[in-house]
């Protein structure tokens, strides 16, 4: 399995505090990966670095078939290269309808001029409807997304990510605040997505991770502590120390 994203030797510090310390990470083209770790392990900062929000002090981030370096690219360019990100807090555009949210996310030319003259055609609307069905919002297409429930907003956000048709999906705590039924559905959506693309899920909830049934990377103090199946890493003494405290 060839590599889609390769992070090697990345270091970031804020005012002397090393949030990420010589981190290396790889993921393949169609793979589901869970990233776990205690608070402050650097999970969110890791995502910030990949998506260009934070610039690393040191190290390489190589992307795709041509192994382009992502360091120094703007956020928008990185997204256009095929990396989608879902934030911890569901952030959808609340005063716009579900349809508008999804149309905005649809993989299209994003330059201001072409957006200005863009009017959705039948194919686009069909694709939006299809996505809405996928995330269970097909009967809420014209509702304002601010009126949706918390779980629905999370799905809408995932739907927007899928609409972008990214090759790598970074998902930050998708299950937070969801009912068990909603979690079930989220798991299905993520697993489905990972069939055609790479998905990285950052999660606290071990039960949810277990349900994803995938390879797990444990972060601690900004570096990879262990990697492997969930059963494998939970048996690792370092991991136990970190989670249970020394």
């Amino acid at each position: 399995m060839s590599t889609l994203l390769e992070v090697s030797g990345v270091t970031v510090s804020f005012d002397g505090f090393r949030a990420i310390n010589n981190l290396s990470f790889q993921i393949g083209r169609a793979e589901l990966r869970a990233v776990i770790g205690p608070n402050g392990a650097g999970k969110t900062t890791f995502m910030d670095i990949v998506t260009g929000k934070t610039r690393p002090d040191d190290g390489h981030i190589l992307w795709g078939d041509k192994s382009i370096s992502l360091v120094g690219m703007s956020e928008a360019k990185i997204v256009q290269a095929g990396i989608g990100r879902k934030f911890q807090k569901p952030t959808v555009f609340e005063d716009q309808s579900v349809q508008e949210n999804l149309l905005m996310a649809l993989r299209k030319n994003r330059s201001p001029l072409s957006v200005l003259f863009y009017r959705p055609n039948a194919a686009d609307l069909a694709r939006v409807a299809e996505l809405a069905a996928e995330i269970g919002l097909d009967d809420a297409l014209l509702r304002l997304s601010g009126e949706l429930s918390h779980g629905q907003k999370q799905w809408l956000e995932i739907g927007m990510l899928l609409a972008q048709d990214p090759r790598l999906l970074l998902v930050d705590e998708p299950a937070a605040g969801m009912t068990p039924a909603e979690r079930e559905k989220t798991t299905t959506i993520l697993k489905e997505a990972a069939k055609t693309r790479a998905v990285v899920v950052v999660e606290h909830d071990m039960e949810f991770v277990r349900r994803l049934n995938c390879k797990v990377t444990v972060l601690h103090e900004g570096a990879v502590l262990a990697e492997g199946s969930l059963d494998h890493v939970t048996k690792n003494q370092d991991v136990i120390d970190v989670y249970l405290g020394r």
Partner: protein
Amino acid sequence: MNRSFIARNPSVLVFLSLLALFTLTVSVLAEGFGVGLISTSFVKTLGKTLCLCLIAVAMDLIWGYTGILSLGHFAFFGLGGYMIGMWLMYERTRQIVVTSLADGVLPPTPEEVEAAIGNQIFGVVGSSDFPLIWAFADSLTLQLALVVIVPGVLALVFGWLAFRSRVTGVYLSILTQAMTLGLSLYLFQNASGLRGNNGLSGLQNLPGITAPQSAVSLWFFWASALALGLGYLLVAWVVSGKFGSVIRGIRDNEARVRFLGYSVESYKLAVFTLTACISGIAGALYYPQAGIINPAEVAPIASIYLAVWVAIGGRGRLYGAVIGTAFVSLVSSWFTGGQAPDINLGFYTVKWVDWWLILLGLSFVLVTLYAPRGMSGLIDALPRRKGEDA
């Protein structure tokens, strides 16, 4: 514009119809048409108000829709006025000069004409040479182009610098305010080439036109109404589609839009520049009706008032911006013009000239606190229709 756009945005049609009706009514009642119920000076006031409504629409696009509280759009407005003012003043002075030189024994040379115009225009700042920026002042076409180009280029350069370095929120507001202050300080200098604090004057006189002001005022009134109508239509169209979705997204959550792959900076820059151009046009129509433009017009306070009008009207709705601006600026000129009756309390007489600003300031605080949606929020309180956002 395509049919479906109007169909999807019925409020645009309502607005345009009302504007047309208003224009027709004023025209029929104006002195210029002989009925004379509306004085020429009031026609000018109404025409100026329409121009202010146009810049308010632009302000609503940049602030209400894109979330950038620009405290600099009156600078663009003023620049538009200066650009057209340069031609008006040059051409009119030229005609006067040519007439007066024609009395001489020798026919005037081009150099003599130029020197005499320079003397007439720049005598007040102790100079007679034409500064470089007047290079195109003899061409109406070029100056009309500059009405759009100068504010547009300034907005493009300033916006590129500001957005590129991710200055947002109140910081950006302060930066735009600084830009306005810088421009007005520059214009205050005699060396600016735009007659320092004298500004440009006599702009109400169209060169070569002998028609009375009662007619000229109506022409400008019509032009202002047309510009407002077209501007409104353009902005309503811009905000109606996916572009509108994106800029409203930027207003609500800039980072999220960026992570959808949109280059937020380009969008902001595009909107900032577009609104600057609209402001320039509004200014170019306003100042010939006002008759004079000077650097005080560009002072930062004017741009803040603009924000006040839009906020009172209700931002995020184009008709809100228009209602707020028309209401506040007309009421304002009523109170400060001395028409409002003083209130005698026995021990103290409330003179509205003195107290209007206090009233305005406080009502502004109240609107911000208790009616963040402004006056158009009242319209929204009526039964809501879906899909109406312009």
